[in-house]
């Protein structure tokens, strides 16, 4: 709304009666946009719920390949970035431009840290072939080492029930009973570093890979990928805001744009809170 050269108070557009009407219009518009984002991500959450409800064994089996500690770290990083952007909005309202620039840069750093951790996780999946459906060639499988403790071990998974020919005689299909679904206890701690080879001590019962385990990784990459794109877009907007702040656009207290960006960023954090729970903490 404000023309960049303008450093006085917030600028009133010609078609509004007063500043409050203008601010509330921007606010309502932003909340409606956040509603569309909720429904946009909602499609993926629906795919998650449908596949998890109908194939729970896939999610119990496959989520153990995700590193809980990196997930938790990322959640903390995003929560901190939510804090810094909320404080930045406060700084903009109080016309503390230097503090605003510092806090926006801090949020930017935290966001890039978040993407860095995601890169590490993605590279691990890439190396172990744990990718989406068409490129799912796992080179790691779970070995049940003692009660309730599953551990990642390199080496191709044994042909689980999934490989059995799907073209058996077309009689009404017997439901795939739970008999051969291994009892996967939740891992006491996150899987040991994916890279380290498993000490071959004693006999270990290999956890059979359930049917269509690749669906979990498809949903994982779709959800975290789309979320990552939203983080990238957020980082781009932060650079734009820092540039505007540098040129003094917020000196006059016209904080609307920082406030709107803050709402967008909090929603990105809010969606990650659910992603972390649904993808990493399945049990």
């Amino acid at each position, binding site marked *: 709304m404000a023309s960049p050269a303008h450093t006085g108070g917030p600028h009133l557009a010609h078609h509004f009666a007063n500043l409050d009407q203008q601010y509330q219009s921007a606010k*309502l518009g932003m909340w409606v946009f956040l509603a569309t984002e909720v429904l946009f991500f909602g499609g993926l959450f629906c795919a998650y719920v449908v596949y998890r409800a109908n194939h729970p064994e896939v999610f119990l089996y496959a989520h153990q390949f995700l590193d809980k500690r990196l997930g938790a770290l990322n959640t903390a990083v995003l929560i901190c970035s939510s804090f810094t952007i909320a404080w930045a909005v*406060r700084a903009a309202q109080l016309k503390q431009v230097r503090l605003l620039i510092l806090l926006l840069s801090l949020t930017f750093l935290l966001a890039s840290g978040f993407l860095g951790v995601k890169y590490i996780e993605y590279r691990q999946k890439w190396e172990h072939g744990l990718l989406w459906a068409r490129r799912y060639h796992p080179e790691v499988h779970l070995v049940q080492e003692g009660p309730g403790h599953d551990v990642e071990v390199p080496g191709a998974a044994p042909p689980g029930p999934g490989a059995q020919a799907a073209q058996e005689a077309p009689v009404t299909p017997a*439901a795939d009973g739970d008999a051969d679904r291994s009892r996967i206890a939740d891992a006491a701690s996150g899987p040991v570093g994916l890279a380290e080879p498993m000490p071959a001590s004693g006999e270990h019962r290999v956890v059979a890979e359930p049917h269509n385990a690749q669906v979990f990784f498809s949903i994982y990459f779709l959800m975290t990928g789309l979320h990552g794109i939203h983080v990238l877009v957020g980082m781009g907007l932060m650079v734009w805001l820092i540039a505007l702040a540098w040129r003094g656009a917020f000196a006059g207290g016209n904080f609307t744009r920082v406030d709107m960006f803050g709402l967008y960023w909090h929603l990105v954090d*809010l969606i990650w809170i659910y992603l972390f*729970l649904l993808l990493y903490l399945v049990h």
Partner: protein
Amino acid sequence: MSERTASGVHITSLRTLVVVWIALLIGTWLTVTATYFDFGSLNLWIGLAIATGKALLVALYFMHMRWDRPFNAFVFLTAFAFLALFIGLALMDSAHYQDVVIPGYAPALQQ
């Protein structure tokens, strides 16, 4: 306690921000430790409860929902209502047609 901008918009105090921030970090720690105890079928719901609690904290305090026009909150909740409708009906149907789905059918992956 609550300051106001020139045009009357509420400014959240730093103390509130820090308190909510700490609460969120504790919430994250709580979610992770909750996975170490097995509450049986309740696990999912406990996790969701904690996550929703954290989400409410972010929405109410960080996103000013508590001091803003209630209609904005109503718009946000409507989105979740329609999402629940979509997930609910799609889940109801998919759960009821699993008996005719060929288990593990993925011919492109079998070769």
